Structures are given as structure tokens and as C-alpha cells.
């Protein structure tokens, strides 16, 4: 177990290194941040001064070297446009995104697994068919459009929920949380639903397929023959057996929900990391882009690790060893 964890960490360090190099070169290839950040009233001397001030006058390898030596001491650089450490900027915005992602995941799980089970148990009924048809919509409609439609219907026409933004936050253990107040919940409902829609459809389909497969397995037939109630068969035997793929997907998708909440955050003006990334790309704020992607890579590595450990809890046959990674 320990060997496994250590090996994973070593691999992650390698991934982080490669990632930082890619992003660095990538941003360099897009354009020169000074060209975006400089005020039009600047002349050549002022442009040269700003270039030097941001360290962009040095050759790329030296810029990267400076970044790397900073990174090893935990300093990922300062945002060009905010003049505060990039990591602070991201960590400041992270709770909002994590809160949104968690809420979306909860919506997806709480609705997705029961609906998927239902569709799997009664595939030919109209309920099952409606659920499946709904999941196709959830898959195929673009997040962007659905988000705007949600705003138009529930905020502009019905006036039930606020259009955009995050509600008032309450500080819990140093973190700002908005789901603890009614106003906060009203604010998060639309963006979280918007973000959950795709994952919800995914979970419905996954659960349904798993359920259908499990129902035809010998252990289910045996359990039924033994005289167990259908309720018990589904709740204990089917559900537990289809959980492995679901946990994998939930774990990995949680990462992608955090990393790619960008569209939802932009439409709903949700002050999370995704919006920060978009703004930073527009201003070529390289330190923030690099730091953001490094944090996301780290997050994925961590989630993979958690998923692996969860397997062992769900299925005793899975053993983590140095060889399996």
C-alpha cells in the first residue's frame, strides 16, 4: 500500500513537471503578454520597461528556469494583472468552484442512480423510456445554451431564482460557504443544475446498463430463488455490484466537473476558478494559467488515488500493489 502510494506520488511529480513545461511553451507560442497588458498610450520605452518588469525580456529557457526554481520553493509566481501570488488567487476562488461542483455532483448522484436503477429495472415501461429519452437530451444539449435557457425561464420569466452570481457566504472553518443560507441555495440552484445535467445523464445510463447486466447474472437469480425480496436483491446485491464503475466515473468526473466548470461559471458569473482561468487566458496571465493547470493535474492525480483506494473497500478482490498503478 505504501509502496503504491509513493510510486504514485513520484509519477505525479513527473506529470506536473511535463505539464508545466507544456503550458509554459504553449502560452509563449500564443503571444506576448505585454502586447495585451500594455496600455495603448505606452510608447516603445514603456513597452520595454513593462516587458522587463514581467521578466519577459529573458530567453524562454531562463524564464522557465526562474519559474522552476521558484516552484521548488513553493512559489508559482505572481499574477501579472492582480500583482498577488497566483496560488492565492486560485485558492481564493477554489471554494466557490468546489462548492458548485459538489452540489452538482450531489444532484447528479441523488437523481442519477435512482433514475438509472428505475430505468434498468423497467426498461420497457414508459417511465424507463422517458428517463432514457431525457438522458439523451442531457447529453446532447450544449451546457451554454441550457444555462441561458435556465436563466431565461426561471429568472427572467418566472422570477423565482436570481440570474447570476453567488449568494451571501458563511464562514465555516475558514472557508466561505454559500449553501448554508436560503439565499445562497437560491443562487447555486441554477448553475449547479446546469453543471449536473451532463453527469446526471451519464450516471443514469451507467446505472441502467449496470443494472440490466447484473439482473441477468447468476447471483441475482440465485438470490431471487432463495426467496429474497426484490427490494433486498436490488439494494444489496445489484447496487453493490454495479458500484465499481459508478465510483470510478464519479471520482474522475468530479475532477472534470471542477476543471471544466468554466462554461457554467462564465454564464452564471460564478466567481470560481474556471472564470479565473478564462479571464487569465484572455490576458495571457501566464503565472495564473500555469498554476491553475498544475493544481488541476494534482487534483486529478489525487482523485485517481482516492478512487483506487475506494475500490479496495467496495471489492475485496482488488488489491493495491506496486505493480498495479
Amino acid at each position, binding site marked *: 500500500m505504501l509502496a503504491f502510494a509513493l510510486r504514485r506520488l513520484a509519477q505525479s511529480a513527473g506529470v506536473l513537471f511535463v505539464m508545466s513545461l507544456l503550458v509554459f511553451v504553449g502560452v509563449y507560442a500564443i503571444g506576448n503578454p505585454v502586447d495585451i*497588458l500594455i496600455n495603448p498610450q505606452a510608447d516603445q520605452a514603456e513597452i520595454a520597461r513593462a516587458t522587463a518588469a514581467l521578466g519577459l525580456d529573458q530567453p524562454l529557457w531562463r524564464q522557465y528556469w526562474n519559474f522552476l526554481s521558484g516552484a521548488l520553493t513553493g512559489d508559482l509566481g505572481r499574477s501579472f494583472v*492582480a500583482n498577488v501570488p497566483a496560488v492565492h488567487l486560485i485558492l481564493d476562488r477554489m471554494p466557490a468552484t468546489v462548492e458548485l461542483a459538489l452540489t452538482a455532483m450531489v444532484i447528479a448522484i441523488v437523481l442519477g442512480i435512482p433514475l438509472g436503477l428505475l430505468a434498468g429495472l423497467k426498461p420497457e415501461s414508459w417511465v424507463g423510456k422517458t428517463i432514457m429519452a431525457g438522458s439523451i437530451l442531457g447529453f446532447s444539449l450544449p451546457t451554454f445554451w441550457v444555462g441561458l435557457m435556465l436563466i431565461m425561464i426561471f429568472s427572467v420569466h418566472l422570477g423565482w431564482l436570481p440570474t447570476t452570481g453567488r449568494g451571501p457566504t458563511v464562514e465555516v472553518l475558514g472557508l466561505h460557504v454559500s449553501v448554508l443560507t436560503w439565499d445562497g441555495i437560491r443562487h447555486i440552484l441554477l448553475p449547479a443544475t446546469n453543471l449536473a445535467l451532463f453527469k446526471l445523464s451519464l450516471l443514469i445510463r451507467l446505472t441502467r446498463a449496470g443494472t440490466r447486466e447484473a439482473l441477468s447474472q447468476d447471483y441475482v437469480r440465485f438470490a431471487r430463488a432463495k426467496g429474497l425480496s426484490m427490494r433486498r436483491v436490488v439494494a444489496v446485491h445489484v447496487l453493490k455490484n454495479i458500484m465499481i464503475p459508478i465510483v470510478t466515473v464519479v471520482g474522475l468526473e468530479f475532477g472534470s466537473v471542477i476543471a471544466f466548470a468554466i462554461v457554467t461559471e462564465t454564464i452564471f458569473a460564478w466567481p*470560481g476558478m474556471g*472564470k479565473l482561468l478564462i479571464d487569465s487566458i484572455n490576458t495571457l496571465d501566464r503565472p495564473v494559467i500555469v498554476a491553475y493547470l498544475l493544481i488541476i493535474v494534482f487534483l486529478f492525480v489525487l482523485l485517481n488515488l482516492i478512487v483506487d483506494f475506494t475500490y479496495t473497500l467496495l471489492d475485496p478482490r482488488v488489491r493495491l500493489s506496486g505493480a498495479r498503478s
Partner: protein
Amino acid sequence: MHRNCLLALALAASALTASAADLVVGMGADVTSMDPHVLNAAPNNSIAEQVFGTLVNRDPRQRLEPGLAESWRVVDETTWEFKLRRGVKFHDGSDFTAEDVAYTVERPATLKGVPGGFTVFTRAIVEKIIVDPHTIRFKTAKPYPNMPIDMSLLPILSKKAAQNATSADFDSGKAAIGAGPYRLVRFTKGDRIELARNEAYWGPKSAWDRVTFRLLTNDASRLAALLAGDVHLIEVIPPQDFAKVKANKDLNVFTISSNRMIFFHLDSGRDKTPFVFDKSGKPVEKNPFKDVRVRRALSKAINRQAIVDRVMEGLAIPAGQFVPEGFFGYVPTLKAESYDPDGARKLLAEAGYPDGFTLTLHGPNNRYVNDEQVVQAVAQMLARVGIATRVETLPFSVYMTRARKYDFSAALLGWGVSTGEASYPLGSLIATVDAKKGMGPFNWSQYSNQKMDALLEQALATVDNPKREKLLQEATEMALRDHAVIPLHYQVNTWAARKGYVYTPRTDERTFAHAARPQ
């Protein structure tokens, strides 16, 4: 029972008055810092000017008026004197004096690791002389007529609050102590800026107790927030929705010509140009844009009114020079080129291109209002006079870097004249490129006209206003009769508000809470 009723009534009344005196504004672009000298970008400056204030204010049409300075004058050719307003207090109650001004003027050059951009306003000053606590003199190396304009763009800090502060201290509000009409209550990055009225403000009292600027950068969401009543006022109405917003009885619309002119730079300085080919696709021998007849032909081929009506949904004004009417240096006789495709064909034939040539137009696709569509419309118009035109549009971040390397033959650019006068666009856009003199940093045409340069240089050293204006007009006319660039249109700035809220539109694209008032 009665008492309860009264209490409830009183509460209801107070709730009403509180909400009636609050303003929520939807901003269209991100504000990155509360430190006013970190990044010279319009959204940051807009907030900074409301919190900190400037020595000189700009009226809605960018004419200068007294701000923290009551008056200013030229002492001699190289000395400006600013008389500071007496009795002005910063938000923390301390006095505003010449020390604070001297400190502010020094600060931009001392900031490390930031793009900044405020040294352009301070570096002409070679010496600061504090005559008395309410009089300060700036010495310059040579005559410098634009000093009051520069001072209208530099937010003034309190020395006491700012001198040992980091940018993070400004964000937290600790160092964001100014003398503007509002004080900073809270800055939530990427989300909102909350301000409260500065009760001790020297000027007219703002109508709003509290103001919230929400950062709603997505056009559709910003408009939805207004429609739902979540915000009272938004800037930048998406042009495709303008007609609908205008027809909506619950909303008021406010517009004004902006100071931003959209135009094409034509690569006229070089013998070879990268994106012009003959009809068979081979590079041309000589650069056609060196010939003024070809440049004039392109200008005549463009139907500006059609672009304004169809592409810009009426939210633009055809342009014939860098500054719109009413700005310092505007030439009344210089009108937008009229549409004349036959004349264009004739000129092309005269210049030796009876069959035209092949050209690629470049432009950004996320910077100006409908920028990509404008480039496409121009391409179609050029095709009609025989210039086979391709279009390539790029995100601004990519576009700008390539354009500054002179990578294009015809490149779209928009220029907001933040100074409100003509020397700035002339110097940045068409003066001969000269890094030593700081001229032509954005002259992507590499246009060069010695006579124009001389006129401009003379204007920049002439402190006398009428004389300077005449020189600028002469320079403008000389350059534009020579088609140094191809002007297209001035953008129109737009605001929309809920019924009951009025906004005084501004040419400088600023959204100021004190420019809004209840109806």
C-alpha cells in the same frame, strides 16, 4: 397592536428607502486589482477613479474640469502649477495635501513585476516642487501641453495609507484610501466590488448610499440580469439585442459616440508586403499600398454606412479621422469617405491594377464590437471592386503579438482616444516609427511622412491651446488626405437601465455610479 402596525410601517418604509438609494451595476469586463497603478486598463481605472479621484476630472465628453485640483496653469513653458482643493479629506479622515500628490506621481515607476502603464503619465515630470500644502509644481524637460490630461488619468493615493502597502492591502481595502466620491467596502475578485458613498466628498453628493459593481462579463447573462431586475444598470448592450432592449418598456437606453475609432492599417511603408498576391497567387513584385491611389481606392470601395446599418445595428458613426466631433483637434472639413466603387475601380486601373489583386485582411475576433463581421463586410466590398479578399481573424492575444511584428498587410485596429485630443492617435498610430522619440509604437502601416512628423512634434511642444489645435488639425488633414490609415467608424457606447434609473452616457466608456441617478 397599533404600535406593531406602526413599527411594521416604519420598517417597510425604511426598507424601501434603503433599496431606493442602492445601485447595482453590471460591468462588462473584469476588474483585476484595487491597486490603481497595477494595470492601466479601462475597467480597473473606472473603479479607481471613483474611489481615489484625480486632480483633474473629465466631463461626459472628456472635457477637463476641476477635480482634486481647483485650478491649474502654465507658469512657464516647462512648469505646470496645480492649486489643490482645500479642506479635502481622505476616507480615513486625514487631509489631502501636495505631499500625497508628490507621492502618487513617484509611485508608478517604483512598482516591480507589474505591467503598470501609469508611468506614461508621470515620466515627463523631472521635478516636483511643493510650493505650499495646497500648491504643487511639476517641471518638465521640454514644453509638455498634455499635463492636465495626464493628471485626469492618474488616481491619487494617500501617502500615509499607501506608502508601505502591497497590492493585496489595496484588495483588502486597508490601503484603498482615496478622496473619491465612494469608498471601498469590499472587493470580491471575479465577482463584485461594493462601494459606499463618501459622506465627506468635496463635490456634489452622489444619489446612492451603496453601490455594487457586479462583474458580468458574459453579454447574455449581463442582459438577463437586467431583465430580471437583479441589476439596475448595465454597460455595453450586446448589439444584436439592442433593438429588443430599446423596445422594452421597462428599460431605458443611453447612447453616445465613443472615443474609439475602428480603422485599417495598410502596410504602406515597405517594398514587399506579406499578404498581397497577384490573381494567380504569386507574390507581387511591389507593394501596391505604397501607391496613394490604391489606398484611396480601398477607402472609396468601403460602404461605411452599410457597415453601420447592417453590421453594427446602427450603433456606430462613419469616421473620417481619429477623433470624433467635439474633441480637441477635430477637423470639421474632413468627412468620412463616401462610397464610390466606380471611382475605386478607376483608381486601381490608373495605379496599374485593372484586374485588382489578392489580399488577406486580418483582424481580431474578440476585441471590438462585431470585429470579425466588420472585417468580413469590408472583404466583400473590396471583392466588388476587383480585389479578391480573404479574411483571417484571430483572438486578440495572438493577433496583437503578430501585428506588432508587422506580420500583416491590412490589419484592423480600434483606438480609444483616452486623452480626448488628436496628438495621441497621431503619435501612436502614424508618426514615423522611432523608438528613441517614442513615436509610432502602433504604426503597423509603417507610414512615414516627415512633414506630418514635424507638425506633430511642433504641436507637442506648443502649450498655447489654439495654436496647438491648429497644428494638430493640419497634421490630421495631411495624414488622412494621404490615406495613412483607412478609417471605418466610431463605436457607440451603450448603457441600459431599469425604468426609474437614468445614466449620463460618456465618450470614455466609463461606468460611474455618480453618473447615474434616480429618475
